[in-house]
């Protein structure tokens, strides 16, 4: 079974600085998807960024970018120019490709990293 590990329960960053959140995963599949979701105090789960495993190029979305290291099974999230509104729980998630035989549509989540942004 696939597992996702977020080794940093809490992180903090100064406003306008850069922070990197770590995520590692375990899978025997070659094709899959990885996601970062943000959960602010409102508890809404918000998609931050998505990466397809077959793509070598790292995904970016404005101030958010990932460092996807497929061989190392690592998927870190970098937040540049951190803003107060970035304070939230961040969850890394994995999902098999729908082409995987017997593949599941479920997302496998890490336990989350709580990010604090200091003014």
């Amino acid at each position: 079974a696939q597992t996702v590990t977020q080794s940093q329960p809490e992180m903090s960053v100064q406003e306008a600085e850069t922070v990197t959140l770590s995520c590692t995963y375990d899978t025997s599949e070659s094709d899959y998807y990885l996601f970062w979701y943000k959960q602010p105090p409102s508890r809404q789960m918000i998609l931050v960024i998505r990466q397809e495993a077959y793509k070598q190029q790292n995904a970016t979305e404005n101030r958010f970018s990932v460092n996807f290291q497929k061989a190392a099974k690592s998927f870190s999230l970098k937040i540049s120019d951190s803003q107060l509104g970035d304070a939230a729980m961040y969850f890394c998630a994995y999902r098999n490709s729908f082409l995987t035989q017997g593949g599941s549509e479920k997302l496998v989540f890490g336990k989350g990293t709580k990010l604090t942004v200091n003014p």
Partner: protein
Amino acid sequence: DAGITQSPRHKVTETGTPVTLRCHQTENHRYMYWYRQDPGHGLRLIHYSYGVKDTDKGEVSDGYSVSRSKTEDFLLTLESATSSQTSVYFCAISELAQETQYFGPGTRLLVL
């Protein structure tokens, strides 16, 4: 934002009573999911649906049942609520199995 609503948003109930949570979407997406979120566990899949009347179990399905009679509604039922089912429940939708899942606002359930 994806058009997903959950009702109720908060509920307090007693052990042994039945509880039904509703997820409603306006996106006409085929796939719908129920997750629960607990401290130290992240989110875990309870059940999901891949079409009207087509459902399957997730990793923590014991004590839960689901129904989907219309594309837009996915119901989660706790037949006899237990304190271990105190949690925050999230509904999610995706157009296709390979597409990104978008989440509803969540329902806080407290079972006393």
